[in-house]
């Protein structure tokens, strides 16, 4: 079904002049988003969008342009813009497109026809059911901030004058809700979600009950006293932490002197319990993909093994400059040139379930939500400070809810302070997989 996109990419590539490399990324997305409120549809958006991004490299200079349209005239204008833009770049001996590397693109189950044929009325029913179960879950549930169903069918074709030629289609859908619980003047919130490749993968009731539980268990929360404590990051929080950690292992950051692990390959950088992989070929992951943003095969990369730094991730450019090969980690949309990044990071799970992890802690905090990751965490310096909420842990049991505090350390120290990795892998609507993680000696700032 996406072959027409590849045909457009081929046509752009065919326009390359001698001595000029051209790459075209052509995408089309079909998206539905349904928000419900008080048992009725609040908004229903359905749309198809498309676009083309064209990269030109000539004489060691790269230029790029894009258009949110696949009209022939728009494509011609975009190619002309990309060529013109290239003439202003600084000469770079490493500039160039990806070239086929012999790694076979894996065949992954990422597209489901059942997603394409699922009726809108059934999507609405699923969102209404989500809200209904949230509201019925507990008498203290006072309302929802949001309850939504969303799905997308994403098609992408990449072709280049260097011999890249890929096309693929991926489907995904999710349910997400923010619940509010109220007692007296106090309101607390909690979210829940469910992700899948087709609607039958989704479980509205599980998402709803999780949201209701997360909200109600925060009622009565107080600000904790400051101190240094052992912290259990729940899977949702760990996934956000891994997303930041991924940045520090990006080969471009390393080359440009922005990675705090730049000269640490082969060295121990964390607890021996830590094995970090980037595996976009795991179809359970929401961001699983068969090819990266330059059309090279996606692949499983082990970044940290038993605490020892093994590998940085690369795209074609950063690899060429670093004297290595691409790890298949070009990240992009059609509106930008490929950057370098992890596609789907995950810790290899340990053997303990979350209850066992908590049972082993005398005095600590279970953190179920963090805020301000973009403002209080600096992946270049490693300084780490975020707002947090969750539950105190006393004598191996969950105790009172706590809020309005921060947890702080440095990324370097946190990796060394990891005490345990849980067995509860959780796949989330993001490019990192969650798992419970126990980290000792974080500074809790409260009253």
């Amino acid at each position, binding site marked *: 079904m996406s072959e027409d996109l590849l045909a457009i990419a081929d046509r752009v590539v065919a326009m390359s002049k001698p001595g000029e490399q051209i790459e075209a990324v052509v995408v089309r997305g079909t998206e539905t988003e349904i928000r419900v*409120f008080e048992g*009725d*549809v*609040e*908004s*229903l*958006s*359905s*749309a198809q969008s498309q676009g083309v991004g064209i990269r030109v490299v000539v004489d060691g200079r*790269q*230029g*790029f*342009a*894009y*258009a*949110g*349209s696949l009209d022939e005239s*728009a494509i011609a204008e975009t190619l002309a813009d990309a060529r013109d*833009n290239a003439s*202003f*770049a*600084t000469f770079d001996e490493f500039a160039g497109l990806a070239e086929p590397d012999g790694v076979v693109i894996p065949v992954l189950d990422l597209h489901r026809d059942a997603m394409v044929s699922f009726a809108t009325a059934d999507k609405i029913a699923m969102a209404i059911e989500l809200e209904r179960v949230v509201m019925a879950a507990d008498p203290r549930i006072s*309302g929802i*901030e*949001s309850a939504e169903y969303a799905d997308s069918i994403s098609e992408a074709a990449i072709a280049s004058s260097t011999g890249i030629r890929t096309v693929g289609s991926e489907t995904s859908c999710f349910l997400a809700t*923010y619940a*509010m619980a109220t007692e007296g003047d106090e*309101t*607390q*919130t909690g979210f829940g979600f469910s992700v899948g490749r087709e609607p039958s993968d989704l479980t509205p009731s599980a998402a709803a009950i999780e949201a209701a539980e997360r909200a109600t268990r925060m009622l009565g929360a107080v600000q904790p006293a*400051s101190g240094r404590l052992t912290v259990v990051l729940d899977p949702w929080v760990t996934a956000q932490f891994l997303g930041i950690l991924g940045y520090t292992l990006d080969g471009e950051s390393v*080359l*440009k*002197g922005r990675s*705090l692990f730049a000269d640490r390959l082969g060295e121990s950088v964390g607890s021996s319990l830590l094995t970090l992989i980037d595996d976009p070929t795991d179809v359970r992951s929401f961001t699983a993909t068969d090819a990266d943003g330059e059309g090279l095969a996606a692949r499983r990369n082990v970044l940290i093994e038993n605490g020892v730094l093994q590998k940085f991730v690369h795209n074609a450019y950063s690899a060429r400059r670093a004297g290595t090969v691409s790890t298949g980690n070009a990240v992009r949309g059609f509106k*930008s*040139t490929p950057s370098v990044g992890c596609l789907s990071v995950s810790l290899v799970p340990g053997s303990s379930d979350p209850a066992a992890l908590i049972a082993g802690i005398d005095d600590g905090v279970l953190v179920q939500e963090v*805020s*301000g990751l*973009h*403002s*209080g965490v*600096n992946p*270049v*310096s490693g*300084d780490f*400070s*975020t*707002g947090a909420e969750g539950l105190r842990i006393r004598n191996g049991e969950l105790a009172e809810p706590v*809020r*309005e*505090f*921060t*947890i*702080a*350390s440095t990324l370097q120290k946190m990796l060394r302070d990891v005490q345990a990795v849980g067995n509860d892998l959780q796949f989330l609507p993001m490019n990192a997989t969650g798992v419970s993680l126990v980290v000792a000696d974080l*500074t809790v*700032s*409260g*009253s």
Partner: protein
Amino acid sequence: MIEQSVLEVVLGVAMRTGGEFAEVFAEDRRNASAVLDDGRVEELTSGRDRGAGIRVVVGDTTGFAHTADLTEAGLIAAAEAAAAAARGGGGGTNVIALDRRSASRGYDIETYPGDVPKASKVELLGRANDAARAVGGAISQVSVSYGDNRRHILVANSDGLFVEDDTVRTFFAVSCVATGDAGMQTGRESVGHTIGFELFDMYDVDQLARNAADRALTKLAARPAPSGQMPVVIGSGGGGVLFHEACGHGLEADLVAKGASVFRGRVGQQVASKGVTVVDDGTMEREWGNIAVDDEGNPAQRNVLIEDGVLTDYMWDHLRARKEGRRSSGNGRRQSYQNLPMVRMTNTYLLAGEEDPEAIIASTPKGVYVKHLGGGQVNTATGDFVFGMTEAYLIEDGKITEPLREGNLIGNGPEVLQRIDALGNDFAMGPPGTCGKDGQGVPVGDGVPTLRVSSLTIGGTAA
């Protein structure tokens, strides 16, 4: 962009199946950017996005569809899709007569960035890079970015409103890494206004670069921030994001209506210290959050949200205002034609007080002086919010002393507003921001005078 007669036909189609309100929002946007990193001009990017979003409202349900096809046939297909999504039951013929109005922002763009040679934009990058690196050998990496965009919008709706607007924004930022014995630190400076290339008549890029480099170098000697509660002085112009998070989002009528705001039901009440007046003002000329009309075609307004500590009003978009039988406050904004509008801030700021800023610091025995805040985040239902400090110092015995490493501060909006105990006479607007809500980013501005919060929780690691 689209003929009036075509718009009238398309709106008629959108209303044909029982719609109570229909709207066409069309956008033609051109972006240009250039990045220098690691000593090289890596790339210039240019792009164009053009399309229309159509919504149809029936009861409390909104149907929405968008298309990149601006022909009559393309627009009619989107109108039919939006109408079907809204499940209208009725029927009949709708005649829509549009009344064209003009949008005015009170000043002219002097130099359209599209008319400026690309070489002139690239030259700025090189100058900033050289200036930052000249600050000292500890500056180990520099990245410079330039961006401009021109956004032509058209809004036509079934109430007869028809307005077009053309907005130009220009942006420049420098980020530096400094390397010392204790690792790396970063410093950043950014400027952006709703103007053209005359931005560079207002600012000297060499000075911007030196500011970014100095911030990174200062932090090389920084000590870990304290942990726990103490007074915090926010510097003039550096910390408007505090109000954006502490009360701005909580005053958005869509969140209030759902009960997801701690400020629900509090209009007329004292919610902040006496003397605190908070304004959201889309008309503020040349500021990053300036708009002539919002993305629903309503003129920008200056809206007083809190006056002398008393909550006076929320911010409104078309849908919420219509439901309450009042006028929109000009706060209906969207990221692009592919998104539904919702209640958003523009330029949000706190009016100046009368105190001497030096005296505010001098009267603080022990605390933290935050010269520049980073981003922030709020849970509007609980009021808990965080914001980052990107440049901060200790205050000891009424004097600014050692620099501090980065971290977040956390507080509760309604409590923090009541704890403002000093307001300086030195108001200034801060750097350009992008506000995110439900996945949509829009440009916003903020501003504050020097001010003091008697107690905030500082999320550092030092005792």
